[in-house]
């Protein structure tokens, strides 16, 4: 499997592969590619461990019952497995955290970076849930459907990212 052991693919080739995944998504699942809804499914289960009433909240209940959200949860687990296989096959396994963080922020400790990452993940999902989608759902899928709202969402995502990245050293 040369394509799997290859160290890298051109970003254009990777984009074509991801874009083609819309075919099974629309034909077999009757939805578009997305990722952030699966975090609500996980959230609903975690909340249910501590609070039996969590399942009564309509928003959580919706993400625990539809098979579409189980498909998406399986999709993001598959993403982790795919990246694992890909890195394994080409000998590009990562360790600890990306060296870029040290260049950008001076952070050298994994603990400090994990605190930052936790905060980042929190902000990420609050934003994605307010917007109703992330870089997959609004970005890749929304723009492929010429959705007006998704196009605005992509512009504001970029704006937010550019603003925050001004705080970092140039990578």
């Amino acid at each position, binding site marked *: 499997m040369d394509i799997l052991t290859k160290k890298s693919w051109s*970003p254009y080739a990777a*984009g074509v592969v991801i874009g*083609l995944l*819309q075919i099974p998504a629309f034909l077999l699942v009757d939805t578009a590619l997305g990722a952030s809804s699966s975090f609500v499914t996980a959230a609903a289960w975690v909340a249910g461990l501590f609070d039996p009433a969590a399942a009564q909240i309509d928003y*959580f209940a919706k993400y625990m019952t539809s098979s579409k959200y189980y498909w998406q949860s399986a999709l993001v687990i598959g993403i982790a497995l795919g*990246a694992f*296989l890909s890195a394994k096959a080409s000998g590009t396994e990562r360790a600890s955290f990306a060296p870029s963080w040290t260049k950008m922020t001076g952070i050298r400790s994994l603990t400090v970076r994990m605190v930052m990452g*936790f905060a980042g*993940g929190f902000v990420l999902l609050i934003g994605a849930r307010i917007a109703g989608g992330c870089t997959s759902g609004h970005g890749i899928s929304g723009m492929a459907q010429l959705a007006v709202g998704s196009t605005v969402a992509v512009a504001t995502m970029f704006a937010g990212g550019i603003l925050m990245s001004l705080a970092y050293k140039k990578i």
Partner: protein
Amino acid sequence: MSLFFMIVLGLVMGLVFGVALEKSRVMEPGVLVGQFQFRNFIMLKMFLSATATGLVVLAVLNGVFDVPLHPKAAAWGPVVIGGLILGIGIALAGACPGTALAQIGAGYKDAWAVVAGGILGAIVYGYNIDWFKSVLDFGDAGKITFADLIPLPFWALALLAAAGLIALMVVLERLSPSAIENGRCDVPMEGPDEDRLGHQVHGQPAE
């Protein structure tokens, strides 16, 4: 479709997605932030290519086979404010919700914290959804697409947009060649590991 089928399908599609994210380095924090600093255009290239491919796919599925689209609502409050917060989150996390999982797969330990933080974010949003909606739910223009605004069928506009994106990629590749960006990744996109580690692993043992 049965739940079992959906889960297997999701896993298989995710596998392909994850391989593409790792091979293209789009899941690297340095690549995402590099894009926001306009130092590295790998993310934009992948994104434009995936969108152009999706446009062609949907032009055919919708235009020829009448497969329904699922555009999200153009709600200005949520989309503008949520998008800004999401963008800040991407730069802090060094990941999007999908690529955080790819980082876990590739071996980055901090990505586990990103996912945990994300689940907590979704829990906080779910418990306070009424408050978020009361503050931010304004300016909902409905699930409109540009094909609703411009007197062209979706398939025609989608193909035109795809052609525009392809032209944009050609220009982008001229301005920022992939060959230069490859060397700016934490894990180089080409060349043997020996170069990255600074010593020879294979071949003759060092004298």
